[in-house]
């Protein structure tokens, strides 16, 4: 029950923050409805406080939050990158006479791509209908393209690993290794399009840089795995690849945050920001450790490799959570669109 009452001289004892603070749009001295505190559940009560210059409907998000589970989909981004870049490393190692590294990466790619497929199926609302993914071939759907890509890459990576371990059919094994190495970069890069081809501001607006963040992160992960699994004598390319991956990922992430403007906030704040910072720290530590000690010390190589793998995982989960945060706050949808309209009008 409300304790307020209306008398001749006005309202007494009214509860604050219960009026709908909506009015003019941005730039017209509009008032603001913003959410305060955490949302409790899907349909919790929301309180309003004036804050930034934009209008919304009681602080409710404009677009829907992705229904994807972070562990499944961010985990899939990570595993797909690890598998895809790993197949490239495996082929390179085989060609340059590093058999232990080649075999280790073929196996890790097979395990990773199996895990990523399992994560994708697990995330479906109707997992028993996963085969419907191959019902159509639709270039406008990155998920459809990804399904077809995986159905080509998965068997190639699997054949490459199994034939290497069993030593059978050497010609087929080489073809499978080469096929996986050619499809691998596509597997690592397309997941960026998968995320960008949504209305989620922190993903869509980053579509130019996100593929480079993802392929850089994929190289980081695969080289980390190579450092963990290969003998010290074979570590040269893994060290170089790790430096390349970390440099590509860091440069692309910086460029992305710079261009995104206010939409970059979720990459700096909250859970997304914490994960992105952790990724930066871990990749710096991993790259430094790899460059300085991984060619001499097995322990240093394993530790650097673990740091690089963790850095890649943090990047993927950071991007995922930043996207979710940008979908949940109407600010990131309304303000850039308002600015776009203002630019068009001027």
């Amino acid at each position: 029950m409300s304790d307020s009452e209306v008398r001749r001289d006005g309202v007494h004892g009214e509860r604050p923050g219960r009026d709908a603070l909506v009015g003019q749009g941005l730039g017209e001295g509009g008032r603001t409805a913003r959410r305060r505190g955490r949302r409790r559940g899907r349909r919790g009560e929301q309180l309003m406080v004036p804050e930034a210059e934009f209008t919304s409907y009681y602080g409710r998000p404009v677009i829907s939050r992705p229904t994807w589970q972070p562990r499944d989909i961010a985990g899939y981004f990570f595993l797909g990158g690890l598998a895809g870049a790993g197949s490239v490393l495996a082929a390179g190692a085989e060609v340059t006479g590093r058999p232990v590294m080649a075999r280790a990466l073929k196996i890790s790619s097979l395990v990773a791509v199996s895990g990523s497929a399992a994560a994708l199926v697990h995330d479906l609302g109707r997992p028993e209908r996963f085969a419907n993914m191959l019902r159509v071939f639709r270039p406008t759907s990155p998920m459809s393209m990804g399904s077809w890509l995986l159905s080509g890459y998965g068997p190639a990576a699997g054949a490459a690993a199994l034939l290497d371990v069993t030593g059978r059919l050497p010609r087929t094994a080489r073809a499978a290794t080469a096929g996986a190495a050619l499809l691998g970069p596509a597997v690592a890069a397309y997941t960026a399009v998968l995320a960008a081809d949504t209305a989620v501001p922190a993903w869509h607006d980053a579509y130019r840089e996100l593929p480079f963040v993802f392929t850089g992160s994929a190289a980081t992960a695969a080289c980390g795995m190579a450092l963990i699994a290969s003998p010290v004598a074979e570590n040269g390319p893994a060290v170089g690849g790790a430096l390349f991956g970390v440099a590509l990922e860091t440069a692309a992430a910086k460029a992305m945050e710079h261009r995104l403007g206010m939409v970059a906030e979720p990459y700096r704040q909250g859970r997304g920001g914490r994960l992105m910072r952790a990724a930066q720290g871990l990749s710096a530590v991993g790259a430094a450790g790899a460059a300085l000690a991984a060619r001499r010390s097995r322990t240093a190589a394993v530790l650097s490799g673990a740091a690089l793998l963790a850095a890649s995982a943090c990047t993927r989960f950071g991007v995922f959570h930043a996207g979710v945060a940008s979908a949940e706050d109407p600010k990131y949808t309304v303000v850039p669109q308002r600015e776009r309209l203002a630019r068009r009008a001027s």
Partner: protein
Amino acid sequence: MSSLIGRNLLAGPEPDPAGDAGHGPGHPPRMGFFTDTSVCIGCKACEVACKEWNAIPEDGLELTGMSYDNTQGLGADTWRHVAFIEQSKPLGHAVTAADHSDIDVLALAAQGSGTPPAEAAVTPTTPAASAASAAPDAPPAPDAAAVPGPPAPDGRTELRWLMSSDVCKHCTHAACLDVCPTGALFRTEFGTVVVQEDVCNGCGYCVPACPYGVIDQRKDDGRVFKCTMCYDRLGAGQEPACAKACPTDSIQFGPLDELRERAAARVEQLHETGVADARLYGADPEDGVGGDGAFFLLLDDPEVYGLPPDPVVTTRDLPSMWRHAGVAAATLLGGLAAVFAANRMPGGGGR
């Protein structure tokens, strides 16, 4: 059906989406909704009719404490949602802060009724015939109220309620349909966008793809659901349940061309009567989604109603996304190849 070759169907105007989706030349005209929020009274009959007709499950009976809107938004189990907004703003030529300080409300209350039964035009016991004859010349009171009072010195302001029944926009360029990997979402012969529930595998891609946040996943079911514009009723020549139930014709259903004309005339009419902030939303085929199949007449900025001010179908940028991803993949392949070239084994092995 005109040729699809060489045409960009990802964005921009597209006069015949049903034809481009493969429906033959004899397909019916594109149907749509025109929701005129200036006459919406917030009764929520559309919400109820939609739930009843489409057998949508109950999805929570909560009081939000934010307004009379306890439905909160569109979702898997809410295909019509009436937004409710209270503003300190006049509507058209509404009188600013009429002065009623000379009215003794306590005396009126003591009288027991605002109008003595003898003077009332209609009472519970009035015979039907006399009520009909008495009703037209009933209101003698407005004479007093018609004279605008002085602006209130105590800062009281005018007030208006905005109500708007939101629904799936059935976009010309529907992101949900573009990104669906199973073909569960399809374009009907009426130009609307519908989910085939026996195909959807609940991948959830359409959910963040929708620029309006319409489609959503039903948690205990796994599949996604949204407005079908009552595809079953359309097929039988009926209008959708919400439009049928709307008591003020705020929700109008019909061929989209006709609705757009009617809407343009209505906006003009409102501007003439002084409602300067009336504007159409989603009616322009040049906008970011190629125009909505369900468009609106709003009385304030779209974001006030929880609508995006400038929605763009995400797949408009997809060709550029694929190009960037291609370059990124080539960078990965080339970069790692260069690393191996720089790290040939000293003892041979390199070819």
